[in-house]
């Protein structure tokens, strides 16, 4: 079953195209790793897939309510405890139990700690645990392993593998090796030609 099909997609940031002509499909059980140098447009592409900004050209086909997005910021409230943060997202997404999610990211011991009192890596682990309670088939992850130590990276890889085995899919932008057996898409060849600005179809050269 195809969860995500991207056809000839072009995305823009700040009024200028970043990448264009990107096509790929993701079926259930598959993961795709996006690579590319800083500033090529990975974040922009992921935000477009997550529906936070419109594509400039091309099509994105997927069923509704498919995506769980995790970005650089984790969306945590420092005043709430780890468990409360997780419970909130679980309720919003009409989602699952906390216990397995806490266990998967080794947060059980920290469950009653306010999120403000977590270290950088612990915060990130909580942000990833949110994916498990969101119960969405497609994970769209932007540099998920930032600040994680080696053991946590391995734990994260296990989590992704289990998600894929359960029929999910994942689209991951990263600079480091995650130890996942997944296809890799390097965005470098899709860099937008400098001459083509991002503008609606039918627009004249004289403008932007």
């Amino acid at each position, binding site marked *: 079953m195809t969860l995500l099909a991207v056809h000839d997609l072009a995305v823009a940031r*700040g*009024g*200028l195209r970043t990448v264009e002509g990107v096509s790929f499909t993701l079926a259930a059980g598959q993961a795709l790793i996006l690579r590319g140098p800083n500033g090529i447009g990975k974040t922009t592409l992921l935000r477009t897939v997550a529906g936070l900004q419109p594509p400039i050209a091309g099509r994105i086909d997927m069923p509704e309510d498919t995506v769980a997005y995790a970005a650089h910021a984790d969306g945590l409230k420092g005043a709430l405890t780890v468990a409360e943060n997780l419970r909130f997202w679980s309720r919003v997404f009409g989602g699952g139990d906390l216990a397995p999610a806490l266990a998967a990211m080794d947060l059980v011991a920290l469950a009653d700690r306010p999120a403000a009192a977590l270290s950088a890596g612990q915060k990130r682990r909580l942000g990833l645990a949110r994916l498990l309670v969101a119960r969405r088939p497609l994970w769209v992850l932007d540099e998920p392993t930032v600040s994680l130590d080696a053991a946590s990276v391995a734990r994260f890889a296990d989590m992704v593998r289990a998600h894929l085995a359960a029929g999910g899919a994942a689209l991951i932008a990263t600079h480091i090796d995650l130890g996942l057996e997944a296809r890799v898409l390097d965005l470098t060849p899709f860099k937008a030609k*400098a*001459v083509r*600005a991002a503008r*609606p179809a039918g*627009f*004249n*050269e*004289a*403008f*932007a």
Partner: protein
Amino acid sequence: MSIWEYANPVKFMRTSGAVLPWVVAGAAVCTVTGLAWGFLTPEDYRQGSTVKIVFLHVPAAMMAINVWVMMLVASLIWLIRRHHVSALAAKAAAPVGAVMTVIGLVTGAVWGQPMWGTWWEWDPRLTSFLILLLFYLGYIALWSAVEDPDSAADLTSVLCLVGSVFALLSRYAVLFWNQGLHQGASLSVQSGERMSAVYRYPLYLTMLGFGLLFLSLLLVRTRTEIRRRRLAALQAREMRA
């Protein structure tokens, strides 16, 4: 050819460049002759020479309101049809409208001093005008605060819609709050009996002049905005390359 074709920036630049000199000339002729004619009118038996402020005050006040209406229309066009020129025209119009409002307020204040013995009175007409100025200021501030031009256009358009509703509401609320001493619309239906023809015709002429003045400022400023957008795009493109 549909009228929307003119929303194409190139076509707009070409057409506006062609008509601009004529509009400017018309504005100059009407404003200057209207004001000169108005200045030569006889003194009013009650208000003395101060009545001549009317030739600045009324056209400015009228334009202040009309400019806002024009911005509302342009915002709607942007929101519905997403023509960049209309968004930029709304942006270009706002400072002109704000200045017109300020001219109306200042000339009114200068007039109020001999007439009512005070520079400022919380009369509903004047108060509504002050509120209109606030809406203009908010709109301009929002344009300058948002970096991305398309987001700025979207946000200011939404603000213009909501603001228009509340500007109208405020007008009624202010009337409810205080019945004032400002004259009613003396150029409306029974205009004949309230303002003599000596004043009326030069007033019509200055009103036309101010309308044309606004149009020429609008065209010039919109052209500037388009060029600025193009410049920014070219710079960004170069940077990216």
